[in-house]
Each structure stands twice: as C-alpha cells, then as structure tokens.
C-alpha cells in the first residue's frame, strides 16, 4: 500500500511568514517536502475563493500563514484573514470536507523554528486525514 504523500499549499505573507520560511530553509531545519509555498504580499490577499478552489480541485491541505496580530505590514490585513478563515472552515465542514484541511497560523520573520513546527504538524495531520475525498470525484 503506497504511502500517502499529501499535496499542501502554504500561502505565506511576504513580510512575516515567508521570511520565517526562508529562515527555516537557511537554517537547514528538517521539514517534510510536501509543502508548496506561495508567497503573497499579505495573508489578506489570500481570497477565500483560492482556498476553496484549491480544495475543490483536490489539494489535500491549505496552510495560511500571516503576521502576528498587531504586526501586519498593512495594519489590519491579518484581521481580515482571522475573520475569514474560520468561516471558510465552516463552509468546508458543512459540505462534508474536514475543516482541519485548512489551517491558519501566525509566523513572524524570526520564527524559523515555529515555521518548521507548524509545517511538520500540519503535514502529519493531513497524512492522518488521508487524501482529499474530492480527488476521486468526477464532475
């Protein structure tokens, strides 16, 4: 039985979490390879539509990483994200997709280790959840 290798998107904001991801890389911190990092200027530019499209298309997990509350380069961007993502999770839940496939977290530019921790935890969680059930669905 082949081991499940999840496909995971990680939206990382330019000012904080992407820098944190970079730091983790530079520091050669061990991380599972399943993450595809997508750099965005602010976590608020991650429109819920992208997340929903990704999951509908079969992506196994989506990570949205922004700056800590109070540190957003654009002041209130991460407030938007903080409001949106829980609702996106509910949309997933009601339709029958595990809401844990979407995770929101805050990682600062200096938190290379936190990045590693979040990513490793998330990949593990998705591996437990199994492949996205939308993968097999023929429209």
């Amino acid at each position, binding site marked *: 039985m082949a081991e499940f290798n999840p496909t995971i998107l990680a939206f990382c904001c330019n000012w904080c979490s992407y820098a944190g991801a970079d730091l983790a890389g530079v520091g050669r911190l061990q991380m599972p390879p399943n993450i595809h990092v997508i750099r965005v200027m602010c976590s608020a530019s991650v429109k819920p539509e992208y997340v*929903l499209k990704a999951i*509908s298309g079969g992506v196994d997990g989506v990570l949205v990483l922004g700056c800590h509350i109070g540190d957003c380069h654009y002041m*209130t961007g991460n407030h938007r994200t903080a409001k949106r993502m829980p609702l996106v999770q*509910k*949309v997933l839940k009601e*339709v029958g997709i595990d809401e844990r496939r979407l995770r929101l977290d805050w990682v600062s530019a200096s938190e290379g280790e936190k990045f590693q921790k979040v990513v490793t935890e998330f990949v593990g969680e998705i591996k437990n959840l199994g492949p996205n059930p939308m993968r097999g669905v023929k429209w």
Partner: protein
Amino acid sequence: MVNDLGKKLARLAFEERGADFLLVMREEHGNVAPAMVSKGEDVGVVRLEVPYQLVTILENIYPWISKGKIAVITRRCDEKALAELAKRKYVDDKRIIKIGLACTEEQIERCRCEDPVPSHVDVGEPHAGVKGDELSARLAKMSQKDRLAFWVDQYKKCNKCFGCTLTCPVCFCDDDCVLEERTFVAEPSIPPGLSFHMVRSYHMIDKCIECGECERACPAEIPLLTMRKLLAKDMKEVFKFAPGDEKTVSPLNTTLEGELMEDECNER
C-alpha cells in the same frame, strides 16, 4: 379590475403612507406577475400567495428611479434583505416604505422559517415559526463521508443557470460576479465544480437572510436553503452575528477589536 386586497394595499401605500410607487404581485394573462404600480394607476387583482422576490426586483429597477418613495410588500425576510442593502447604501431606506406581509403556515413550512413575522404586520395573519429543517437534522447525523457524498450528488445536478444569484436579494455584484471568472471556477462546462457552490456559500454567509428564493429558482431542486441555514447557524456560533439588522456590521468588515474596515465586497 381591482380586488379588495388591491384596494387595501393601494390605499395603504398611496394614501396613508405617501408612496409614489407600489411594488406588488398581481394577476396578468392567467399568471401572477410582479408589478410596479404608480400612484393613480389601477392596482389590479393582487395576489400575494406566489412568492416573488420583490426586493430583488426592487434592487434591479432602483438605479433607474431617481426620485419618489417606493412601497414594497415585505415579509420578514424581505425586511432583513432591505436592511442588508440599505447598510451597504444600495438603497436609501428613507425612500422605501415597507408594507408588512405575514406568511401563511404553508409558506412558513416550505421555507422551514424560524422568524416569519415582520416587525409590523399590515396584511395576513401572523403565525409562529417552525424549528429546525428536516434535512439539516438528517445531515447532522451523517458521517462526514456521507455528507460529502450527499452534497456532491446534489451539486452535480447544477446547470449554471445562475438563478440562485440572479434571484437573490442580497447578491448585488451583478456585473462582476466572481462565479463567472475562470480563475475561481475552472470548469469550462457543466456542472461547475464544488468551488462554485462553496464560493457562493462563503459570500452569502454574512448576508443571507434565508428567504429561500435560491432554492425555489433552482431547476435542479438542490436544497440550497438548507445549506444557507447550516452556515447561518455556524455564523452565529463563531461570531454571534446574524444578517438582517441595519445597525450591525458584518464581522468580515470589522477588525478583531470591532473597528470598521473597508467592505470586503468592494474589493475588485
């Protein structure tokens, strides 16, 4: 020809409340039609049991009516829809006169409505709401896998008529609806994938006032109203918010401290 109901509404709207126009439903050519009656015009044989979404119709014609007061037959859900529109400045609620219509028991059951009595009842007998939606209860007992199978089965019937968005009173992005963009709904044919329905669900989560028009307009008879109700419950749990009150702001438009931000719907 005018019926008693028509006479009553005409008097109420034009004489008592100073409206210049009355948006109502009446018999025409053996059918029931929406109608915008001007003061002085024959109101016709008014029929209120056919549930046209008059607020949607109002929203369509409002930009062309530069002056005058418009009386609208409003059920409780219509009042809430107007509140959502007024909040976002799509209508000036000083120009709208609401004529409260209480829904019949049959209508309340059909909509599984918990809040059917308008703030002021001008027509109809008020009845109590019903608790709970049979399908929601069934879904709550299902496993996650079965729930997904259920919704995929339903959404597979979708024919992209856009009836749900076109008839919805709080769907106002007429010319730049995100559901039309390939960026978000990839499939170039029908049925549109799950993202179409999930994106719509997300957009409606802070606006839907559960009028049920989407479900009635769906040729595939997908239980859209049930999905709306499920998410309305979630919205209440997560943010203690329910749409339909002109005084409250959507949590999607406020910071974590409750300060006002730019309306996210204005983001293009």
